[in-house]
């Protein structure tokens, strides 16, 4: 071992250590220099510096001097901060010992560890925050470490703390910068991109990169009971997008309901996690964040497995995911509003076109046929009376067809007299044509509702009656129009076969009815079961 530096050479060694801290060297290189300097300045055979990870759960770095790679490998895992080393952190003050084994807090050495007696340890601290510890053993010639050694090592430990904090601040600043850049990019895309898919792809892709996660997805509600993966990034993304999972019995469903983010450190130990879905994603840890827009929960952001030895996410990760979930929520909400607006325009245009055609048939074609009938009248008693009678019958039939078509396209009574008379005629005519016993009752009097509400409820009843004929084998149907809460509701009830409302999909047009009512913030509820008829309730709030 070289002689312990004294005087000027000690100052030079300290100066070099100080320069290293402010150099562009990596943190590991700086800390290694400090460990070397500490050993050199104090004449210690062994020196080590442990850096506690930000979560406090273990060491993120462990640098040594005096122990070769072979010995280090033979010793195994770095110290876990128990015994004397733990006391160093907890008590946050330097510790000098003549013989480590004499100290009551000592827990001994692991197998293959060199024998060590004299000890000097100092906490690596800055502004009251402990970053780790720097310790030395086996001062040359078996001497004890001195007070001067302690001062020197404390100074080097302070420099180590500054280097560690600088590195962490730099890392945090870089992370924030990347996050801001990503959020800015997503913000720009929200302004220029109207398709939901690329927007969500951008969100999950950026978030996965920022969090260094293995898998990120966005799941959106599909019907009342399921969630559908609308976007995903990661190794399994291709298999996942488009897949559905039940809301009930899933963490995403729970988060959707509770509207609160959750961090799961062990997926397999969380009783709420759908283990089948978790296995298919090979998920070990997770973040689950609700997508909330205008006070509505419209989806869930799911993140799995940090790509690091410790796959758990931090609270910072959760906050980052929440920031991205807010952007994703805006994208989903915007897309839904655009889709709704398009549907509203299509429905309005369709009704307008039907109204024009019905009016044209009724007023123009109907009038022309009536004129022909009047024109045939003087010929009825002439020489071609038989042919005229046949023509008369054909024209009457054509006139009936034209009027029926006009009513089927859009009944004039709906525009002129409102929903109640229109439903009275619809139900009466339906009963007459099908042989079903159809009753209609209204409790809203002669009140007119907004045009779009009247049209929507009329079409819902029309579609429901068609469904009754097609599917129910019912004998009687009742239609009731009534006030309900602050809105108006129409109830269509039959005594037919019934069905399982959860298993029909869109086979009987429920989705179309739901979408139409949703344009008015209305709802559709279906109560039915095999053999017990069906009750359908369409409800629309008053505007």
């Amino acid at each position, binding site marked *: 071992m070289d002689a312990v530096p004294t005087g000027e050479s000690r100052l030079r060694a300290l100066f070099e250590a100080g320069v290293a801290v402010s150099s562009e060297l990596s943190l590991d290189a700086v800390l290694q220099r400090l460990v070397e300097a500490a050993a050199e300045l104090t004449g210690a055979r062994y020196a080590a510096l442990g850096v506690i990870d930000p979560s406090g759960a273990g060491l993120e770095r462990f640098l040594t001097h005096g122990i070769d790679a072979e010995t280090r490998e033979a010793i195994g895992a770095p110290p876990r901060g128990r015994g004397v080393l733990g006391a160093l952190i907890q008590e946050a003050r330097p510790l000098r010992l003549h013989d480590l084994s004499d100290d009551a807090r000592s827990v001994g050495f692991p197998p293959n560890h060199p024998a060590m007696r004299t000890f000097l340890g100092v906490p690596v601290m800055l502004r009251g925050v402990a970053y780790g510890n720097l310790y030395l053993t086996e001062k040359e010639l078996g001497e004890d470490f001195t007070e001067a050694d302690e001062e020197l090592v404390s100074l080097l430990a302070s420099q180590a703390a500054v280097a560690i904090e600088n590195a962490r601040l730099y890392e945090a600043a870089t992370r924030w910068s990347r996050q801001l850049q990503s959020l800015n990019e997503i913000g720009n895309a929200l302004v220029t991109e109207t398709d939901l898919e690329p927007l969500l792809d951008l969100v999950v892709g950026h978030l996965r990169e920022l969090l260094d996660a293995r898998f990120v997805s966005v799941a959106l509600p599909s019907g009342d009971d399921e969630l559908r993966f609308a976007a995903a990034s990661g190794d399994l993304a291709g298999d996942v997008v488009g897949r559905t999972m039940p809301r009930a019995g899933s963490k995403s469903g729970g988060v959707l309901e509770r509207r609160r983010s959750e961090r799961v450190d062990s997926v397999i130990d969380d009783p709420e996690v759908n283990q089948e879905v978790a296995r298919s994603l090979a998920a070990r840890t997770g973040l689950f964040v609700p997508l909330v827009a205008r006070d509505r929960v419209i989806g869930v952001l799911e993140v799995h497995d940090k790509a690091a030895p410790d796959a758990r996410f931090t609270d910072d990760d959760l906050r980052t995911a929440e920031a991205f979930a807010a952007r994703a929520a805006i994208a989903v909400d915007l897309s839904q509003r655009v889709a709704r607006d398009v549907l509203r325009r299509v429905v309005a245009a369709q009704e307008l076109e039907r109204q024009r055609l019905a009016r044209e048939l009724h007023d123009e074609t109907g009038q022309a046929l009536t004129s022909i009938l009047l024109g045939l009248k003087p010929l009825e008693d002439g020489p071609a009376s038989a042919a005229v009678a046949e023509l008369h*019958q054909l024209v*009457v*039939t054509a006139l*009936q*067809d034209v009027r*029926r*078509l006009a009513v*089927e*396209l859009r009944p004039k009574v709906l525009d002129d007299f409102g929903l109640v008379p229109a439903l009275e005629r619809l139900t009466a005519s*339906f009963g*007459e*044509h*099908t*042989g*079903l016993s159809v009753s209609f009752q209204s409790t809203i009097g002669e009140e007119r509702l907004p045009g779009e509400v009247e049209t929507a409820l009329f079409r819902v009843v029309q579609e429901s009656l*068609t*469904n009754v*004929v*097609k*599917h129910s*084998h019912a004998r009687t149907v009742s239609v009731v129009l009534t006030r309900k809460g602050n809105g108006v509701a129409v109830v269509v009830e039959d005594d037919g076969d019934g069905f399982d409302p959860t298993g029909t999909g869109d086979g009987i047009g429920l989705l179309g009815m739901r979408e139409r009512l949703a344009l008015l913030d209305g709802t559709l509820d279906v109560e039915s079961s095999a053999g017990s008829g069906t009750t359908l309730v369409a409800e629309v709030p008053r505007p």
Partner: protein
Amino acid sequence: MSYAIVWSENGEAVRAGRLELAGGSLRLCGSPGRELAYADVAAARIDRHPALRLAGRPTLLIESRAGDSFRVASLEGAGTLNELAERLQSALVT
């Protein structure tokens, strides 16, 4: 594909139900229902004569090789009887 219909077999009582065009046959679903293989259909045409209508609507007349006749009127609005006739013709050809 299915349509809400009223139908009558051999001029008997009018029933309400649905018509399904399946892979090899057409089904008149109601109480009771009937199934007719496409191979057993002799003819199908739209009839608009006033006396041959159901519920005041033109009908699709389907005649079987066994001599039965079925009249079908659509309850699903303008144009659907023609659509139904075209689909049936296409099923009969294939």
